[in-house]
């Protein structure tokens, strides 16, 4: 069969079928079109300003390596005037993080960017390996996510940088949309898709310039530019809802390649339709770290325990049962009742931004989530963690924490 010519330049031989739209492209055109799309995202959303100092959250994985490479290229090509540097977090996961940090160190040399590495042990006194030893493999992503978010912010603050970019791609964002729909989480649905997060709450702005880039194209880009990155999966597993959403998205992509982008588009539209009174409700800012955690730690496995979904199922069934016990109050005939649509009737407490009393990190609570989690870890007697758990706003993780603590105690005795 004769070689197919590139769809764009019509000259060179096509070697790539773009996962996004199945166009057949040559190597040069693919690299160009990938970079141009990221450039358009950056311009279209006014992501940077000239002279801005930007830290790239670098894990050594494909996403952040491609992000660093693309930003360096675009910065030079389009004169963004950015001052770029790499910021890495050492979670302390042996066999996973050690090697990837070596990659980041090489990247720093290759891209001529300064690199700063911040360790969990240094910040919190606990490595992830130690956390897992204490709490078990389930639910440890909560710790990792909460700790990581703060760590990146603190690292940036230490460098005097106000903008951190992360390698979240379109697949991650689509997953988050589906996941939040599945667990009925409207507040997160309203913020999970935006390219810049939490700029209102924190001094540090966070953004994801690869938000519209397909994971598969990121891999292709890394491959064809022969980038030096580290392939591995986090050895601890992702939560059930994300696993379920991930499987679903992989199937959707097989049916219609554009669906990842289509979900992102739907998610963006729906975010704007979430009632204002629900948006900020319920979860503190640290929750944002959780929603990004699994996608951001490069974990690609779909292993699910289902525990989280089962727990929610139980809760919903109980709600249902309670509802059937309610007494209906009839409104007399002749009174026209307006349909009460949406949850507007419920008063929602406004969220106020405070600073953690211990570490001064921004929090909606007196004590920030990281410090609360640390409290649980630092106490020798696991039972006391239960009290901390109940006091926390995030019921989901508190119950998990409780169960884990109980289990830990049982096995200790």
């Amino acid at each position, binding site marked *: 069969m004769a070689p197919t010519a590139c769809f764009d330049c019509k000259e060179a031989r096509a070697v790539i079928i773009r996962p996004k739209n199945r166009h057949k492209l040559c190597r040069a055109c693919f690299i160009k079109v990938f970079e141009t799309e990221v450039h358009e995202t950056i311009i279209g959303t006014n992501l940077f300003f000239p002279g801005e100092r930007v830290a790239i959250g670098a894990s050594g994985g494909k996403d952040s390596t491609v992000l660093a490479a693309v930003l360096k290229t675009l910065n030079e090509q389009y004169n963004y005037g950015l001052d770029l540097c790499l910021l890495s977090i050492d979670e302390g996961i042996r066999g996973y993080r050690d090697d990837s940090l070596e990659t980041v160190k090489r990247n720093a040399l290759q891209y001529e960017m300064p690199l700063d590495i911040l360790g969990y042990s240094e910040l919190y006194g606990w490595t992830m390996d130690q956390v897992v030893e204490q709490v078990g493999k389930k639910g440890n992503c909560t710790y990792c996510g909460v700790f990581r978010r703060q760590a990146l912010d603190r690292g940036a603050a230490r460098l005097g940088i106000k903008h951190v970019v992360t390698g979240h791609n379109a697949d991650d964002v689509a997953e988050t949309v589906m996941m939040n729909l599945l667990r009925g989480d409207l507040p997160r649905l309203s913020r999970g898709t935006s390219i810049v997060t939490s700029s209102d709450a924190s001094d540090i702005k966070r953004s994801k310039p690869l938000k519209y880039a397909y994971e598969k194209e990121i891999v292709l880009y890394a491959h064809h530019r022969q980038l030096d990155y580290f392939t591995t999966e986090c050895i601890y597993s992702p939560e059930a809802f994300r696993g379920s959403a991930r499987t679903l998205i992989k199937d959707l992509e097989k049916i219609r390649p554009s669906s990842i*982008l289509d979900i992102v588009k739907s998610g963006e539209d729906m975010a704007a339709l979430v009632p204002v009174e629900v948006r900020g409700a319920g979860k503190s800012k640290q929750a944002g770290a959780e929603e990004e955690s699994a996608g951001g730690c490069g974990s690609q496995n779909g292993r699910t325990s289902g525990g989280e979904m089962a727990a929610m*199922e139980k809760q919903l069934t109980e709600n249902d049962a309670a509802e059937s016990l309610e007494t209906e109050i009839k409104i007399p005939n002749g009174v026209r009742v307006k349909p009460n649509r949406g949850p507007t009737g419920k008063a929602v407490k406004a969220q106020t931004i405070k600073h953690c009393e211990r570490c001064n990190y921004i929090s909606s609570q007196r004590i920030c989530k990281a410090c609360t989690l640390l409290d649980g870890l630092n106490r020798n007697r696991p039972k006391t963690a239960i009290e901390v758990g109940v006091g926390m706003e995030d019921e989901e993780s508190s119950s998990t924490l409780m169960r884990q603590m109980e289990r830990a105690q049982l096995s200790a005795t």
Partner: protein
Amino acid sequence: MPAKELNKPCMECQDAEFELTVRKRQLCSLCFKRFIAHKVQSRLSVYRAFGLDGPKTQLLLPVSFGVSSSVLLHILNTDRQHRLDNGRPLGYDFKILVIEPSTVAATGVPFDQNYEALEKNFPMHNISRIPFHNIFDYVPEMEEIMQEYAGTKFMDDSTRSNEERLAAFRASISTPTSRTDVDTVLLTRLIVEFAKKSGCESVIWGDSDSRLAAKALAGVAKGRGASLTWQVSDGMSPWGVRFEYPLRDLYKAELLQYESVCAELSDIVIPDQPPSDNVLTKNLSIDELMLRYVQNQGAKYPGVMANVARTANKLNPSTTDNAPTCALCAGLVGNVKGNSGVTVANQAEDNHSSQFCYGCMRSRPEELC
């Protein structure tokens, strides 16, 4: 009078043997039907809130001969009869519309006997029956829209019959996902126009909770997230006709239970084809994939799936004042107000005209998929 000797009495009336278990309660068929009917009527109570002399709202109930819409019809009819017998005000009345299934499904399902049974069992209702291709009569501008939508690959031949023209248009759409998507849009438009012409204020759809969850997930996956506020939520459709989904609190399994205790429905309902295991995922339509997903996951986590539709129902309808709407599906062209995403900007590169929304553009025949 001595109490009846019952082995396992109904938990509600204690007066009959239990026949069905619903939400962990054992009920007799009468109490079961009452429970289901209550769930439906509470959803439609807004239409009842008039006094004795209030106007009677007309609703349109499209019946597909599937379980859900047939059960809905049965519930509404029972309630109506009950009210008439007791001299109570109706509040609303409804018309029945049948889009001939043989003109919709490719396999040409015979339905004449089912239709006869429908007329026989519900003689007091105004039942209309129209073929799918009547869309050209109900939406006169449809031929232009189709020509514009399908692009150069499709030539509309106005000398041919409407049936052939519709078939040609549908055949021009290549993938199962796009075909199902566009079919749904066309059916909705036909039903809406029929509702308007026959003076109906609202359309009451027979989507079960499970169906709505699948619709919500599929809508999101097809880039139609902004339209969920009327495709899944109760609310005003872009055509000025309200959409109601009164079965939204009931699972498909519960509707099947209802059907099993209603002898009248057995001749009307065309049973669902069991999903085939031999289809590759990539050959399914997105709607079908989501339906399967909701069914599979719903077996284990029914509440989680039900919650998807409830979540979608909480979204605010978008404010569409003067915003351009899609010529085909009436969805918003561009982004919802407040959405600064640039997916639409990326799309403009394709040099497509902007008279269609993002979701419809994805289902266009010319899309390279």
